């Protein structure tokens, strides 16, 4: 803990400082706990119609009256008065397409998005925002009559249909948590698919980007009209920060378990799991001296930091100035993890330089020099008349540029390839080459497109002295150098439209022992000579050689960088965390932060969602969920569907993580020949209880249902299957098949089956199979006798166990699920 008095004292100096500031956005904040007034206020802020407000208030009363469920998992620790029920959601900024994870891009590819986007995907069109694509898709759907929005907008824009169905499948009286959700719901999805329309692609892609409709009390309503078909995938990938994989930064949510990221030591470390939890509260933006490295983080997330008050001089504070720092003290200081909301302006956060080095002989000095030129001035395009790709370096008009152009040609000569230099009508120098070898080399190691150029892993891990060849030529092209008096310090600046490249240049400079700042020059619309243009954001990497005074200090491969500004804003949504193997840390925009497994994460969160689905005659709906919650989340979700005549409803439900899950997706088969299916996987490790199952209610003739549940428990975890099979009188010729398999990995863990059958009709067919198995020694020995390691053998047996359900998932999800299961299991079997 930080001495608050000291901080208060320190803060005195903030006000009129130079460059430092403390900003907190004003926002509406409700106090904790639930009262009638708060429910009313939620509805007012959302400007909802009266019927919804009344519905909420009625639900609030029901919630108050209903007792906590006395069966199933232990919920005694939930403190309803310690939860914030509403915070005003701030708009998340639209994201840059470059930052969209690969799998989403692939999804778009498969969606067959219009030509313009396709071009964009190929990197040839100008900047397109992911939001644009999302809107395009939305337009396409709107034309077909599909309504697909977040639930709040659904209520606003389609109130008729909304009112007709909302709460009809799951009334507030159903259970305490459904009542709570009805009282305070916010976010979720609203989908209406019109008659006869078959939506071929799963409706998940859009949600993966548009994260704003997910939250703690989300409410989803899906209506599939007669003869329609839709597959909805509930993914929860909030837009996260950029995390270092060593050679490049990637979005945190795109990282899969078992991948490697860079830790506080600058070395590779394996990701054990990736977790999500609902989060309501302050989101802190840390803005270091290098503003381009600003990042967002939740209040309790620990950051590797040196507090300024630990390293300051004894000198009296000058009014309005930060306390001065004693270099010796700073050099001796060991950075410690400090919770984000205890980090203050002026403190030093830790930029970590990745240390992996692997020389590659084929990347010679000349090749690296040429790649440097390409990075700054080069492009690859397709010459249609020649049917050939060409490599083109464009230079300016000045004499120095002519020299650079000639140098470039001679570099190409030295590499034994052909090229030509010419001067355009405008007087610009251009070097062109058709060498396939060079083109491949440039594309492989530098990518293409001004906003998407990115250095390869091979380049990023070269010894720094070799990287310098590339860097020098890059700066010669894209940069400029000023010599400043009176100390003749040399300021070097380079500018790129590729954000990720800017971070790479910063990293190479760090490897060379120099900390460079990144500044962002905002792009935007502009008119030049009557032509409308869109300027791209420019990322400016700058540093000063032989600087007399520097606020950034270096120690081994670390740089301690002062924080210039801290902003706080409100956040309501999901947040993403990585659990990285020892040393339990990863780099966000270059700065070390701790794993989410830090002991400071003690507050439990509640996720109480409601999903209602109406499947009309001959329609078909599949609802897929893969969730990996942090182990402090109570996941209490009510999911129910009504299936009409000849309709098919399928729930595919994978529950990993969480502290407690209680979830029983159900299907009410209310008309003849309706079919319901629940395929589920539950997994519980240390301190976790998964109480999951299914309900099938047959109340019409010839209805059929299948329940297939698989559960895995290990390391003291507990799984329970709880299922209800109800067949009403008159539901003749109904058929149902229940299979539940449990896998126990050790003697500490526990699994139970609670099947409830209420059968009021004689002419029915019912099957129930339950099995409990251990990972058998025989299987393990068999696999190991073929050379497979124990760890891998266990993994194989597990994957095999869940395979019947995993194969129902789209490929990328199946892979993700497998990776998640493998990693959380690591070291806990046998």
């Amino acid at each position, binding site marked *: 803990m930080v001495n608050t008095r000291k901080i208060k004292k320190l803060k005195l100096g903030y006000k009129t400082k130079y460059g430092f500031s403390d900003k907190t956005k004003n926002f509406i904040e409700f106090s904790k706990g639930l009262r009638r007034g708060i429910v009313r206020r939620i509805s007012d802020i959302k400007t909802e119609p009266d019927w919804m407000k009344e519905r909420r208030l009625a639900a609030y009363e029901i919630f108050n009256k209903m007792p906590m469920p006395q069966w199933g998992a232990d919920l005694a620790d939930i403190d309803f008065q310690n939860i914030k029920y509403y915070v005003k959601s701030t708009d998340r900024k639209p994201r840059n397409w470059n930052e969209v994870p690969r799998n989403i891009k692939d999804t778009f590819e498969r969606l067959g998005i219009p030509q313009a986007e396709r071009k964009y995907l190929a990197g040839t069109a100008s900047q397109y925002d992911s939001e644009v694509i999302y809107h395009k898709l939305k337009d396409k759907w709107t034309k077909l009559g599909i309504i697909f929005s977040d639930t709040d907008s659904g209520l606003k824009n389609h109130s008729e249909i909304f009112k007709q169905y909302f709460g009809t499948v799951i009334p507030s009286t159903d259970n305490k948590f459904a009542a709570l959700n009805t009282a305070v719901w916010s976010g979720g999805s609203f989908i209406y698919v019109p008659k006869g329309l078959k939506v071929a692609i799963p409706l998940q892609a859009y949600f993966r980007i548009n994260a704003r409709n997910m939250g703690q009390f989300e409410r989803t309503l899906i209506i599939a009209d007669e003869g329609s078909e839709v597959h909805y995938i509930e993914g929860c990938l909030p837009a996260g920060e950029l995390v270092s994989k060593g050679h490049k930064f990637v979005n945190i949510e795109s990282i899969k378990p078992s991948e490697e990221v860079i830790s506080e030591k600058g070395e590779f470390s394996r990701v054990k799991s990736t977790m999500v939890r609902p989060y309501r509260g302050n989101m802190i933006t840390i803005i270091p001296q290098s503003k381009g490295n600003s990042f967002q983080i939740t209040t309790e997330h620990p950051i590797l930091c040196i507090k300024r008050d630990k390293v300051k001089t004894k000198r009296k504070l000058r009014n309005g100035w930060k306390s001065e720092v004693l270099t010796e003290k700073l050099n001796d200081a060991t950075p410690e993890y400090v919770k984000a909301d205890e980090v203050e302006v002026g403190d030093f956060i830790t930029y970590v330089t990745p240390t992996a080095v692997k020389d590659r002989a084929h990347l010679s000095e000349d090749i690296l020099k040429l790649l440097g030129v390409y990075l700054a001035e080069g492009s690859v395009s397709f010459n249609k008349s020649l049917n050939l790709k060409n490599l083109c370096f464009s230079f300016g008009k000045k004499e120095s540029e002519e020299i650079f152009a000639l140098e470039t040609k001679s570099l190409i000569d030295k590499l034994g390839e052909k090229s030509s230099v010419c001067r355009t009508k405008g007087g610009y120098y251009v070097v062109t080459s058709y060498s396939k070898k060079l083109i491949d080399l440039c594309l492989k190691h530098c990518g293409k497109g001004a906003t998407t150029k990115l250095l390869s892993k091979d380049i990023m891990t070269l010894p720094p002295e070799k990287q310098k060849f590339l860097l020098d030529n890059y700066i010669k092209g894209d940069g400029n150098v000023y010599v400043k008096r009176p100390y003749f310090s040399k300021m070097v600046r380079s500018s790129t439209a590729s954000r990720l490249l800017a971070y790479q240049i910063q990293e190479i400079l760090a490897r060379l022992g120099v900390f460079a700042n990144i500044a962002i020059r905002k792009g935007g619309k502009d008119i030049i000579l009557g032509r409308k243009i869109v300027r791209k954001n420019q990322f400016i990497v700058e540093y000063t050689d032989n600087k007399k005074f520097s606020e950034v200090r270096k120690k081994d491969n670390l740089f301690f960088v002062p924080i210039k500004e801290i902003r706080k804003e409100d956040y309501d949504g999901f947040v993403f965390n990585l659990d990285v193997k020892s040393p339990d840390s990863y780099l966000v925009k270059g700065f070390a932060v701790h794993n989410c497994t830090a002991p400071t994460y003690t507050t439990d969160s509640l996720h109480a969602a409601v999903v209602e689905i109406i499947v009309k005659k001959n329609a078909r709906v599949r609802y897929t969920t893969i969730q990996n919650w942090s182990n402090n989340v109570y996941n209490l979700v009510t999911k129910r569907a009504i299936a009409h005549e000849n309709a098919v409803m399928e729930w595919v439900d994978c529950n990993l993580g969480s502290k407690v899950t209680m979830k029983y997706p159900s299907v009410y088969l209310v008309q003849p020949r309706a079919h319901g299916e629940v395929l589920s996987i539950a997994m519980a490790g240390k301190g976790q209880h998964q109480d999951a199952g299914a309900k099938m209610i047959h109340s019409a003739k010839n209805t059929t249902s299948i329940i297939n549940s698989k559960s895995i428990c290990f390391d003291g975890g507990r799984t329970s299957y709880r299922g209800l099979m109800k067949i009403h009188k008159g539901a003749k010729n109904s058929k149902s098949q229940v299979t539940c398999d449990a896998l126990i990995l050790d003697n500490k863990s526990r699994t139970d089956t609670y099947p409830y059958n209420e059968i009021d009709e004689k002419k029915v067919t019912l099957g129930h199979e339950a099995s409990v198995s251990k990972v058998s020694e*025989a299987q393990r020995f068999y696999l190991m006798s073929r050379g497979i390691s124990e760890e891998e053998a266990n993994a194989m047996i597990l994957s095999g166990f869940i395979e019947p359900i995993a194969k129902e998932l789209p490929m990328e999800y199946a892979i993700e699920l497998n990776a998640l299961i493998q990693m959380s299991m690591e070291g806990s079997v046998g």
Partner: protein
Amino acid sequence: MLEISDLQVEIEGKKILDDIFLEIKPGEIHVLMGPNGSGKSTLAKALMGHPDIGVKRGKIILDGEDITKSPPDERAKKGLFLAFQYPVEVPGVNLANFLRIARNSLLPKEKRIPVFKFRELLRKKLAFLDLEENFMERNLNEGFSGGEKKKTEILQLLVLTPKYAILDETDSGLDIDSLKTVFESFNKILKNEKKMGVLIITHYKKIFDYIKPDFVHVLKNGVICENGKMDIVKKIEKQGYR
């Protein structure tokens, strides 16, 4: 050379094998015979390193390296293979994937075979054993007939090409036709792998229609009571194991 020297083996404190000496040189075919319950399968498991089997005395040495205490996967990496008497079902594990992972685990990192290339290779191996191509799409032993299981063992032997192979009652539970196909396949492999050392465990003599061993050993009550050549088989034919 696979060398078993003065081996004494226990399961749950009960002595099963004692005083076992065996030397299998590359290219040699040994047959170990013995009545039910004599400890034949225990020897196979002990050689492969089953965790339930305790080696109380003696050593197992593979090409000069002591593997007595090595886990099964390391033994496999050093070139040992066991065809199981009762191959285990591993539900949901695709045979082709399993074989690729197993094959690759025996190879150094840079020599590992990528998915598509491996499938090509596997197709050839399946054809070599007259197995249907879609065989590789099935799950490992899941729902296989007895014959299919044994054929899969031979397929694994072919794909993994060990230096020393132990066949634990591969002939048991097979009808005459299956026996023929399985051992004809095995002989085809041996023709290509002339340096493979083989230990065949059996208690039927039918196998000698297909296999001409260099040495025959008889195991009784946990002890090898006779070493010799085909003449021993003739003796047993007349007198039984006695």
